[in-house]
């Protein structure tokens, strides 16, 4: 338990800051921005009255989709997902690369604890910190659904949980990066680079509109878009996510427990 306690304490301040940022972004989007969108509906409908009917449909714009809360909350995810991914990767990298950064692996590994225990405690610390972030996030998000739509249906719940599930995938990325990289210069740089790369890939996916690219876009494995359209997650993407997550974590575990640690 000592390692678990040490790592959670070390990362707690960082996590609280991230939680504040992510929840504030969510809050501003849901309570600041959404009313603006709704208010502009009348102006827009008046303006659209001057266009021949069918123009909107031809461009695939459905007014009810644009102004519905569920439709709006898809967009919120795009921004919070980037932040959440950076936080999850950075935290995992910080926890798993700490000894590498400080060049103190020998001090930790000579303690009377098996390497697999160390790995499990560090992993537990990562998951706990992700949990800490998600409690207020889920609470605020759920409250907003109750506020705007009066109920939380199953698809809504899936949308709300997207961030948490996506973060689990990025935790495995962070762990793999920290364990397999020969040298970790900075855990925050690792987190931002991986998060930004994933953001770039998700932009490729959304700009190109090619379905194949969804497999290389980890930010869209748990995609509110899919939930909005079909009521559930896109199963092939979820399968990819699970394979990646378990595969990377298992590989990191094997490496961590068997690697020869240079003095």
């Amino acid at each position, binding site marked *: 338990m000592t390692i678990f306690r040490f790592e959670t304490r070390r990362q707690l301040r960082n996590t609280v800051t991230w939680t504040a940022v992510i929840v504030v972004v969510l809050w501003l989007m849901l309570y600041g921005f959404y009313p603006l969108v709704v208010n*502009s509906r009348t102006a827009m409908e008046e303006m659209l009255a001057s266009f021949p009917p069918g123009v909107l449909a031809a461009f695939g*714009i459905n007014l009810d989709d644009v102004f519905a809360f569920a439709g709006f909350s898809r967009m919120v995810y795009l921004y919070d997902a980037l932040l959440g991914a950076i936080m999850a990767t950075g935290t995992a990298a910080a926890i798993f690369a700490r000894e590498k950064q400080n060049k103190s692996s020998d001090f930790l590994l000579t303690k009377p604890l098996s390497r697999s225990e160390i790995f499990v405690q560090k992993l537990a610390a990562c998951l706990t910190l992700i949990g800490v972030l998600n409690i207020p996030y889920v609470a605020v998000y759920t409250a907003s659904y109750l506020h705007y739509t009066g109920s939380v249906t199953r698809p809504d719940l899936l949308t709300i949980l997207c961030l948490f599930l996506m973060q689990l995938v990025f935790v495995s990325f962070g762990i793999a990066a920290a364990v397999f990289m020969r040298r970790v210069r900075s855990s925050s740089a690792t987190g931002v680079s991986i998060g930004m790369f994933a953001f770039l890939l998700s932009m490729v996916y959304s700009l190109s509109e090619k379905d194949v690219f969804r497999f290389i876009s980890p930010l869209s494995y748990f995609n509110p878009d899919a939930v909005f359209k079909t009521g559930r997650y896109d199963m092939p993407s979820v399968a990819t996510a699970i394979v990646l997550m378990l595969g990377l974590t298992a590989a990191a575990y094997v490496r961590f427990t068997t690697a020869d640690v240079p003095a």
Partner: protein
Amino acid sequence: MNVFLQEWKRGIKSFVLWGLGIAFLIFAAMMKLRGVVGTESGAVTGMLAAFPKPVLAMLGMAEANIETYGGFFSVLQFYAMVVICCYAVYLGTVSVLRETIDKTYEFLFTKPCGRLHILSMKLLSGFVWLTLICLLNSVFSYLAPAAYAIDNTIADTMPLFLVAVYLVALLLYALSAMLAVVIRGAERAIRASYAVFLGWYALSVFFDVDTRFEFVRPLTPLKYFRAGELLAGRLNPWYAAVVLVAVVVCVAVACTGFQRKDLTAVS
């Protein structure tokens, strides 16, 4: 010169990675437009112009109509800018902090060539890498439409986008080098630099949301050069001047601060 070469060689791997990222972004995104002949449907553009800004922001078209080639390219370049900025932060912080983080500073800074010389060579090497990635971005931006037979309707305003990306990245590069010098503790300095960048990004999102938030523009360099203005063939000269002055100031502060910096072994 040795410092420069050494530092430059160490940057190859990350350059290749980020370069591949940019290539992938541009080519994969442009694939969508393959064979599309520049159709500027006046009706659609007119209709979109009348949309309220919050709605446009939701559709991802706050600045320009994404259905036209110009609009698509401006969105693409905004993301290229985000990616290159991320690389710029890496370059800026690593130029200053590499030896501290690797705990090798006593090997380098005891050489008879002076701190200022070492830092300027390292900054120069980062500058060269940053310039190269912007050139790569430019080359890809011209190659991709040619390769996919896209009617390049904005060939003459395209250089403006590329220059805008370069300027903003340069600013962030200098700023993060300065922060790395000024802030004590390597990890803290790196975190602060990325925080500045993410802050810019967040503000640019708010900028897009509603016309009432346009006052945040001076605070977010990502919006100094707006897609609308660039498409009209205008690179805002005031903001360009501000960026260049800020770069000079940041580099000057970094150089003077570095000569007095305590290069502690404990970061």
